[in-house]
């Protein structure tokens, strides 16, 4: 589904991604871990098409297409979803109007007719139930005045609305209380199928108890320096990154 080959990206002349290789197949869950500032969010942003990052080398192939040729909106319609580490507040734009516009565009892309107002509200209600999003949030402006946890839930709600094939969750667990974590993880698991895949960026094993990864990768200095199964996360939890860092710095 996704194939990243030797991806390099920079911002303001500073190289952040220094050669990433990663292949993800349908049905898989990949966890990406790594110390602060290693480039995890940068990778997520580059996948979503953020233009402040300059891709200086490498390729990204998504469902047979060259992802780097596509605008952020086209990537979304093709099935990529990024749950932001820091969701953006958009004053005055209601979640309903926002999701309506997004769902309309996705449907148009699939050659489907726009939903009627009634259908849309019903659809939204279903998806809200999935992430146990409080009703009062929907009348409000996108993320405006939301608590940290509400923002994260809202990301998963949007993911549920857009039914992506590849979702990238950037620290969706941070800031969530233990109940909310379960709800969010549950939501993500319900959306999982043999045709979809996810990249879960996290610092904590805790989330991976709920969303069990098939692979765990460690990103350091803009490169994947170690990959393994779900047991790698447990090992990291215990030992931290020191050893891996040393090893990588030697090379």
């Amino acid at each position, binding site marked *: 589904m996704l194939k990243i080959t030797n991806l390099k990206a920079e911002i303001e002349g500073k190289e952040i991604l220094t050669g990433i290789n990663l292949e993800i197949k349908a049905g898989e869950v990949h966890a990406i871990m790594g110390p602060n500032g290693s480039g995890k969010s940068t990778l997520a942003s580059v996948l979503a098409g953020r233009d402040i990052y300059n891709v200086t080398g490498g390729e990204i192939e998504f469902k047979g297409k060259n992802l780097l040729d596509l605008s952020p*909106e086209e990537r*979304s319609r093709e099935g990529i979803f990024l749950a932001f580490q820091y969701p953006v507040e958009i004053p005055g734009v209601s979640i309903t109007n926002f999701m309506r516009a997004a769902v309309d565009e996705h449907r148009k892309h699939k050659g489907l007719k726009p939903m009627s107002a009634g259908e849309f509200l019903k659809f939204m209600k279903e998806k809200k139930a999935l992430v146990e999003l409080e009703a009062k949030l929907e009348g409000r402006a996108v993320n405006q005045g939301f608590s940290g946890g509400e923002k994260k839930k809202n990301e998963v709600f949007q993911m549920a609305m857009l039914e992506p094939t590849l979702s990238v969750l950037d620290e969706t667990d941070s800031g969530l209380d233990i109940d909310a974590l379960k709800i969010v993880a549950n939501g993500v698991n319900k959306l999982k199928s043999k045709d979809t895949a996810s990249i879960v960026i996290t610092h904590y094993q805790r989330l991976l108890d709920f969303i069990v990864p098939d692979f765990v990768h460690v990103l350091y200095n803009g490169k994947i320096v170690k990959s393994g199964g779900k047991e790698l996360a447990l090992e990291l939890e215990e030992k931290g990154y020191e050893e891996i860092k040393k090893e990588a710095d030697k090379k």
Partner: protein
Amino acid sequence: MSNHNKLTKENLLALYNDSKSYISDSESHKKAIEFINNNDFPNSKTEDWKNTDIKKITKHNFTIYNNQSYKDKINDTFYIYDLNAIQIVFVNGRFSPINSNIEEINNSNIFVGSIKEGKEKHPNIFKKYYNTTDITNANIFSALNTAYAEDGAFIYLPKNTELEKTVHILYYSDGADTKGLIQNRNLVVAEENTKLEILTSYHALSYDTVLNNTVTEIFLEENSNAKMNIFQGEGEGAFQLNNLHISQQKGSTFESNTATLCGELVRNDLVVNLNGEYCQTNLNGFYLAEKEHIFDNFIKVNHLSANCQSNQLYKGTIDNNAIVSFFSKVYVAPDSQKNDANQSNKNILLSDYAKVYSMPQLEIYADDVSCAHGSTTGQLDKEALFYLRTRGISERIAKTLMLYAFISDVIVKIENKAYKDFLFFLINRRLKQEKIEGLCSHKICPSC
């Protein structure tokens, strides 16, 4: 004439050939002429006119339309669904009864009509109020209006009356091939305990260069309540000088909402005098400036008594090479205690060439007052734009959503639902850059 292609004071006066005034008495007329003789066109050195490029206007030489009422029925007049208003129509500054609809006034003591007629019908009211503000001396154009305006609207509400329907005043220009100077002179008198709502809208019937010079005086007596919506959607070749003076007495409330959507140069001068205690005034407005538009709002609110409140909220977007000014001064007179004044102006620049001059100012001579003013000018939040796009929303729609939300803050303040819905519909289409011909303005659309 030496200077044929340029507007001068001399050829402006010559247009009227020393004729008498149609509305003003000879004393007012004489004073207005004197003002014109003693002053020049405002220029870049004139206070408050630094950013209004008056040369845009004076490079044209204008003529006046022949002195005739517009007898043709205008097809598809500007129409707002469900507005259900009393309609009074002026074409080229003259009342056009055939296009108006003022029969449905619930109270026969109320007058809604042309100022020429109103002056005859209510001579004492006219005399008591007309030209009693210092609006004539605002500038040459307002003086010219006092000297030579031929017609305009007159609304009079006697004590304890209420206009149930909105009064919609439509100003059309139609000058096929003439660069016309149009003058409208309006007078609104609301006596004690009255209530009214006015919508004024400006439209063009043909693609002409017109100069629309409108002067309006509004008098709100004790405990009266007036709302005024101003819709500026004249053609791209239109110049509009809109001079509005509100005089409020104790316990009165005024609210305006000015929508500026097109015109080569639109300047709104708005002066509000809060003469009595417990007055409230809310001045709101939005503008969508693009191309080479010059849109200016000059506001002066004078708190001349204790316990008054004024609020201002102006927001707009500025694209291409457009230039926008917001100059607002709140003055609180000595001993006018317990006044509350808020000024807010917010702008979004959509191009590197667009310009904004924003200056909310306070001039306070009383100590027990609460005043706040703010001005922001920035670009669309790029992070927010990216966020919306990652959900599959095109850049254009994402911008529309954000700008719509930005402008909505001003529109939601409008009480009249029909007009509010119309504006929401209109700006949504306009922001999406969809054609809206025939909708926002008769024949000529402000966005096409």
